[in-house]
């Protein structure tokens, strides 16, 4: 494979998606320590917020160790080169959160919706773009619709003012051919100046292969996470993907050995449990279930005495989408009753 000289922007997720396996308990000091080390390794963009984005602090998703504002205020001024992004899910966070994040100095706002519901993002994308922020439209659970349907939604976000569109494999369900098809179509039909991104999960161990397929098909931004710290079996392990890109001749600007050290010395020791492909996270990828349901299903399974794997399969059968963590306890109670 030859990606000689091709520029790829690596975007680290361990301080946002990584909040899921950490039950949103990463401390401010840990955030500073990790983000400055990533900065030192040359990672250009780092996401920082609650796992469910700005305003995610809730009974439903979990209360974090600190407020989004405290995390952002702590991290942003410490970085020399890296920029900080914040995620926002309309329906959870509002434009007030967006303004707060901008005041804290984030460079990038990523507005995330379910892949068929782009039109709930108009006010947030519009505002972020007006404010001159790097504005990303983030289409989640993109495996659930065809490439053509995804394009329709991407065009909406582009029309609201997004300068970058993501195909997001929230369930880690996609195969490289699925990624190629979607990214190729987005690349050919969106404006040439609109960047394309891909966000993978490693539930079928396809994170690296899918991200590579995305780059080959024209994506320029790729999400990953040092040591894969993220929901489900984690995100695309960023140090692995950086090394692969380096072998292929792509230009990421990242020092792969420094990044390997961050993963090995800072992220792995931080893990409460090893983030890996296990029975439950594999089920997420196999059945197409939103990755952050994992710990909720494990907890509900333990509380109500039903297998967490069965809960996840039932969530897939019910076509649950991102954010429906509240359904998990109800499903577990029903399953316990039927036993």
């Amino acid at each position: 494979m030859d990606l000689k000289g091709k520029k790829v922007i690596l975007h680290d997720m361990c301080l946002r998606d990584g909040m899921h396996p950490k039950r949103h308990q990463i401390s401010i000091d840990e955030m500073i320590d990790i983000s400055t080390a990533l900065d030192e390794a040359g990672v250009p963009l780092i996401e920082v917020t609650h796992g469910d984005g700005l305003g995610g602090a809730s009974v439903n998703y979990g209360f974090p160790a600190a407020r989004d504002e405290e995390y952002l205020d702590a991290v942003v001024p410490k970085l020399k080169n890296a920029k900080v992004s914040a995620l926002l899910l309309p329906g959870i966070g509002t434009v007030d959160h967006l303004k707060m994040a901008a005041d804290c100095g984030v460079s990038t706002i990523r507005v995330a919706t379910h892949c068929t519901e782009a039109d709930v993002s108009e006010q947030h994308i519009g505002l972020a773009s007006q404010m001159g922020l790097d504005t990303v439209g983030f289409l989640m659970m993109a495996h659930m619709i065809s490439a053509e349907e995804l394009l329709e939604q991407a065009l909406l976000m582009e029309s609201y003012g997004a300068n970058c569109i993501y195909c997001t494999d929230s369930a880690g369900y996609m195969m490289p051919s699925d990624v190629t098809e979607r990214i190729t179509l987005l690349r050919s039909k969106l404006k040439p100046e609109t960047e394309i991104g891909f966000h993978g999960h490693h539930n079928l161990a396809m994170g690296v292969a899918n991200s590579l397929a995305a780059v080959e098909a024209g994506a320029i931004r790729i999400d990953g996470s040092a040591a894969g710290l993220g929901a489900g079996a984690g995100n695309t392990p960023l140090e692995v993907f950086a090394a692969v890109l380096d072998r292929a001749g792509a230009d990421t600007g990242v020092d792969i050995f420094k990044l390997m050290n961050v993963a090995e010395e800072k992220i792995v020791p931080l893990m409460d449990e090893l983030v890996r492909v296990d029975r439950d996270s594999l089920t997420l990828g196999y059945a197409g279930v939103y990755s952050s349901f994992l710990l909720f299903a494990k907890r509900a399974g333990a509380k109500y005495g039903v297998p967490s794997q069965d809960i996840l399969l039932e969530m897939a059968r019910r076509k649950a989408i991102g954010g429906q963590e509240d359904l998990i306890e109800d499903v577990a109670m029903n399953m316990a009753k039927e036993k």
Partner: protein
Amino acid sequence: MSNKLRAAIIGPGNIGTDLLMKAMRSDWIEPVWMVGIEESEGIKRARDFGMKVSTSGVDGLVPYIEEDKIQIVFDATSAYVHEENSRKVNEKGAMMIDLTPAAIGPYCIPPVNLETLLGEGRKENVNMVTCGGQATIPMVAAVSRVQDVEYGEIVATVASKSVGPGTRKNIDEFTRTTAGAIEKIGGADKGKAIIIVNPAEPPLIMRDTVHCITKEAPDQEKITESIHAMVKEVQKYVPGYTLLNDPVFDGNRVTTFLEVEGLGDFLPKYSGNLDIMTAAALRTAEMYAEAMANGQLA
């Protein structure tokens, strides 16, 4: 039935039409006018139901409010035009029931605070909060009337097909207005609202999860009893309002799971989120009509 209050509906869309069909069955409300801004399917339907119609907006209705003795007007349009509609209608002496998120009048969640509002006398404008608010705030209030709730959080999951373009353009208005009403009407010290729009086919019936954090350890028996009693109150006007499973108690967390199925008048049954708005608005109008008939309101 000379006691029936004569009413107009502004907005001949899905909500307005569903409201019209419910109002036509009412013992207390007699719908007379349907107001739109142009010829449309909704206007045609209203005409077929025997309504007088305006296709020139609220200005087409205003000259007839006194002549036709219209006392109640429902606004099922959008927050952007509501204030103007309300002012014009109030000038002619009619009361406004606001189904938009404009919220210029006091919030009204019928089983929670309608009695209180009635006790305060005539109102020019009452606001029906949001669909999520109508579905969930009764549950927050059911807990807070037993003991102090320091935090109330609701998650409303609705079918994509039941969420119109107005709501989509300003989804923050849903989260803000609902959160505010969880505090003001639900009685929680702090409120948070989350909405999930799910495109599954066949469309899912509206689901709501209501989390309350009580200040002291929850009195499980009293709270459970209060919740069941409140469910019955809501079922008086939304028969498809159902408690799923028993309330969950986990430390100071009290969680209830609900499903809201609509009557399927004009809107499909899965869109309980829309049905509960039209049903609550009509219920509010009926209670005002009853109070007026009994001479409780001037």
